[in-house]
């Protein structure tokens, strides 16, 4: 029974965690997604602190305690979600609404409740049955792993709200079954023996009540799911594209689809008019456009080009520049459009008359709609990770156009992993160009200059890697007043190409911010800044690569190990950042890095408090026991931190490999926890002396992985999607199994029940802090740094363990 309950609780909480993560990203803001792991682990850590202070239930009472916990977890899961939907949390209002921090705290505590109850169940199992710590670990980790895997299917199919309801349903099964199978209730029908501990009966009335309540709750939840109840629906934040568009008269959602890529809505509206980079000289009309909106925010515009000449607008945008200077005849030109939102690159290719156009986007609905809308224009559309396509394809292209407009404010998307513009990505694109080919990248202009200088620096770095003697000679940058297109040509730009560009930019009213031989007089003619900020930054970067390190924002090129293209904060120059924003710090409040740092400080405080309760609280009713050694506490803290660093490292790597946070999360958590569970099971039979060598081995392996941070990504990207998932899971198997051993093995031999609860708390607290620390380490140092941090933590655990555990004197 206990294993089943622990399994169900763990399954439920992981499904809940992933559903919450999606819900927060859509209903609130992507940054709040980072809170979820912290919420889960906080609830879990608090459960250990409470368990250490409780009069623990006798083993004899477990057959009612565990069903009751399952029932409570179920009700708390659904209740917490419904309550959270009603909390008026509105992050962008933080600067103006003093209640918002309180609402955030309320949501945090509310959502932590199910994790607390589930954690309490697992903790009690460890505390009361140390001899079966491996089995409990296997049930907990295995349940979590399977919950994560199940989430990958349930969330796309049923939506976040229904997945939460399913998460609430799962613990009811063992609750009802356990209560029903009590000997006193069913007599001979339920002759099963409890898994552990002495056989004992329970109060009959209570058992019947739990059984009936579980059945009732199950029926109610099933009804909610079947009805598609409004309480389970996700409403996107009012600041997002979809709600904004829906407020416009004449707008309607005409189709919906759910997939592992996200929730998509097809929107018909006369107000969809997508033409960034449009010349002021253009006097025609835009064609009607249909919007495909991913997760309520990312808009892809599909243009109706059925009327001849309706693609003319695209010729009048700077995104067309790559076609303009191509020397390959249009009918023979092969174009690859890598699109994250937008929809202009493919229309520009169509307008150019390109002979072959391959459109790759991360939205299945957008790919379907584009394939149908542009059927007669040589367009093939696929929904895949663009990076996977570029590394898995043998074809070469005359133009590779990356359409990824990005945010309009520095920092707004700083927690978003986007591997389309890393130096590794640009190098891959470069390899797939024909001799006369070019890369085009279309982006918004971000002020203060930050995003554009980074892309320019990344292109220079990619060209240097390819052996170009004069990287700047291959580049051109065209902008208007709010966006720009970068060109990187396989061959250095010649006089003719430069002349063509200058003539065209003059006609269109675009500015050239860079081309070989540019002077200050060539810039800032039509879309005038106070000074030629962008040209100055490009010129400085082309002549002095060290310029990036002196700039007041972090604009250094990023690799696949640190694919955060929108993070710019340099903590030592924060004053310059605020001054650059006109002395207005709101940009900082909206920056993901600042949010992550604030969350880290908050979790540090919470983690310390949670740990202090069982360590230093007397607890009048708690059984008297000696305090655990500092070594023991540090041991569990360090293995908790090490585990979460490892987890986030793979999560980041797999986000690059899959281009879908949900898939990455499901594969990472599912794979890691499942194999860690097996490791935990194996730990039951291992002697205590094996702990030190295992920890040292883990440490060495993780440190080695730190030197090859993107090896997993490079190995996975060329594989087809169906093979990438099992390959990723296989990659996790051995290290995850090893990482599952240290907790189960150490907790097994702790002699005092309260210490086992403290071990659980320490592990959970470190995970809470570690999760937020890992976000900062991942952004600042990359995947390699996370591996090194994990290695250091396990090495520290080996040392702490020698003092606090292995010596046998805890």
């Amino acid at each position, binding site marked *: 029974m206990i294993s089943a309950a622990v399994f169900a609780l763990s399954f439920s909480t992981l499904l809940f965690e992933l559903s919450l993560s999606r819900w927060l990203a859509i209903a609130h803001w992507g940054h709040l997604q980072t809170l979820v792991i912290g919420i889960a682990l906080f609830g879990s850590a608090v459960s250990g602190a409470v368990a250490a202070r409780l009069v623990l239930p006798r083993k004899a009472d477990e057959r009612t305690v565990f069903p009751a916990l399952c029932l409570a977890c179920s009700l708390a899961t659904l209740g917490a979600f419904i309550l959270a939907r009603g909390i008026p949390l509105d992050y962008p209002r933080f600067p*103006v609404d003093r209640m918002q921090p309180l609402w955030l705290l309320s949501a945090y505590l509310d959502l932590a409740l199910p994790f607390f109850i589930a954690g309490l169940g697992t903790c009690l199992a460890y505390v009361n049955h140390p001899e079966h710590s491996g089995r409990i670990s296997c049930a907990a980790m295995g349940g979590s792993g399977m919950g994560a895997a199940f989430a990958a299917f349930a969330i796309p199919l049923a939506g976040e709200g229904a997945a939460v309801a399913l998460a609430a349903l799962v613990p009811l099964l063992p609750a009802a079954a356990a209560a029903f199978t009590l000997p006193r209730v069913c007599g001979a029908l339920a002759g099963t023996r409890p898994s552990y501990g002495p056989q004992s009966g329970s109060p009959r009335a209570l058992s019947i009540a739990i059984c009936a309540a579980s059945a009732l709750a199950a029926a109610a939840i099933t009804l909610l799911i079947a009805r598609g109840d409004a309480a389970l629906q996700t409403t996107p934040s009012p600041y997002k594209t979809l709600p904004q568009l829906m407020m416009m008269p004449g707008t309607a959602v005409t189709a919906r689809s759910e997939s592992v890529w996200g929730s998509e809505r097809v929107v018909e509206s006369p107000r969809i008019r997508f033409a960034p980079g449009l010349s002021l000289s253009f006097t025609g009309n835009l064609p009607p456009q249909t919007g495909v909106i991913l997760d309520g925010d990312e808009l892809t515009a599909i243009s109706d080009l059925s009327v001849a000449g309706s693609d003319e607008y695209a010729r009048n945008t700077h995104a067309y520049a790559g076609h303009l200077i191509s020397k390959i005849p249009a009918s023979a030109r092969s174009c690859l459009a890598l699109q994250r939102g937008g929809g202009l690159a493919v229309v520009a290719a169509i307008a150019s008359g390109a002979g072959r156009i391959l459109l790759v986007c991360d939205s299945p609905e957008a790919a379907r709609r584009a394939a149908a809308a542009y059927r007669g224009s040589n367009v093939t559309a696929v929904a895949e990770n663009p990076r996977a396509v570029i590394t898995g394809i043998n074809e070469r292209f005359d133009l590779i156009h990356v359409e990824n407009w990005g945010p309009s404010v520095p920092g707004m998307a700083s927690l978003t992993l986007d591997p389309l513009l890393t130096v590794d990505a640009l190098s891959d694109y470069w390899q797939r160009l024909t001799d006369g080919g070019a890369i085009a990248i279309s982006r918004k202009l971000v002020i203060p200059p930050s995003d554009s200088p980074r892309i320019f620096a990344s292109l220079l770095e990619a060209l240097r890697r390819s052996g170009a003697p004069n990287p700047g000679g291959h580049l051109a940058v065209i902008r208007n007043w709010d966006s720009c297109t970068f060109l990187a040509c396989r061959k250095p730009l010649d006089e003719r190409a430069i002349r063509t560009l200058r003539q065209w930019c003059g006609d269109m009213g675009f500015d050239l911010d860079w081309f070989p031989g540019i002077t200050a007089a060539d810039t800032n003619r039509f879309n005038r800044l106070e000074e030629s900020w962008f040209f100055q930054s490009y010129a400085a970067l082309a002549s002095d690569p060290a310029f990036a390190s002196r700039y007041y924002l972090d604009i250094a090129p990023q690799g696949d190990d640190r694919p955060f293209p929108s993070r710019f904060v340099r903590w030592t120059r924060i004053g310059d950042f605020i001054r650059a924003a006109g002395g207005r710090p709101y940009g900082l409040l909206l920056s993901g890095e600042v949010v992550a740092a604030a969350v880290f400080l908050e979790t540090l405080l919470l983690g310390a408090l949670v740990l202090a309760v069982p360590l230093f609280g007397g607890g009048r009713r708690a059984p008297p026991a000696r305090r655990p050694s500092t070594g023991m506490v540090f041991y569990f803290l360090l293995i908790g931190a090490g585990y979460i660093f490892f987890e986030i490292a793979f999560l980041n790597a797999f986000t690059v490999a899959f281009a879908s946070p949900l898939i990455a999360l499901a594969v990472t958590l599912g794979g890691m926890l499942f194999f860690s569970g097996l490791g935990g099971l194996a730990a039951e039979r291992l002697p205590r002396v094996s702990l030190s060598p295992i920890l040292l081995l883990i440490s060495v392996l993780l440190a080695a992985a730190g030197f090859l941070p993107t090896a997993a990504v490079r190995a996975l990207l060329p594989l087809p999607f169906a093979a990438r998932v099992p390959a990723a899971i296989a990659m996790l198997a051995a290290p995850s199994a090893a990482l599952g051993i240290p907790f189960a093995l150490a907790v097994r031999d702790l002699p005092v029940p309260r210490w086992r609860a403290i071990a659980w708390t320490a592990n959970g607290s470190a995970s809470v802090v570690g999760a937020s620390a890992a976000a900062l380490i991942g952004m600042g140092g990359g995947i390699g740094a996370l591996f090194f941090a994990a290695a250091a933590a396990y090495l520290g655990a080996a040392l702490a363990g020698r003092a606090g555990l292995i010596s046998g004197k805890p």
Partner: protein
Amino acid sequence: MRRAVPILLFFVSVIFTLTADDFEVQRKMMVDIQIAARGVSDKRVLDAMRIVERHRFVPAGLARAREAYADRPLPIGEGQTISQPYIVALMTESLALKGGERVLEIGTGSGYQAAVLSRLVKEVFTIEIKPKLHETAKAALAEVGASNVQTRSGDGYFGWPEAAPFDCIMITAAVNHIPQPLLEQLAPGGRMVLPLGDPFSVQSLVLVEKGKGAFGSPRGAPTVKVITSVLFVPLTGKGASGGP
């Protein structure tokens, strides 16, 4: 009892004075500290902003919370904001208004910007696409007596052709391109201003001038000037080299 009456009257008068002048004092401080001190110098603009009661254009809760004159944008519902006072002043000043202009505003929002403009020009035409916001703004504009403002609920992308041409156009909603119909409705030599960036964060302005070869345009085509309201740390020199 005879002593109590004057004491009571004193406290009532103090409370009356504090509440009556509170918004006026806040408005004066807003103009002096947030706007003039940052470089907006057009006296007419500063005077208009000293007069227009911003607190009548923000949600009642925020006005009660004394947020109306704060140095930041405020949410007004429907996912929209009333701009930071400084941005309102900067946008208005950038139009270089003399007093006889006809101005089109795209995106009425709260109506505050239209109210400020109404003090500075002959006629204001303002369009709001969201019916709820339009109704609220219309009522607020009537309350402050902005009689030279005409409001309309509709799609600002196509402008207000019946009233064209306009000497100035102000776009206060986010756009990824400048609508061609608006350029057409702008009088030769006319000025159009629109914000660049996020309303809650960094904002600078884009000024479009039609014809007359302004800003060095070689052929008199529309030209664009990005007015950097933010104070960039220089890319070269102290800022770039890590100096103070």
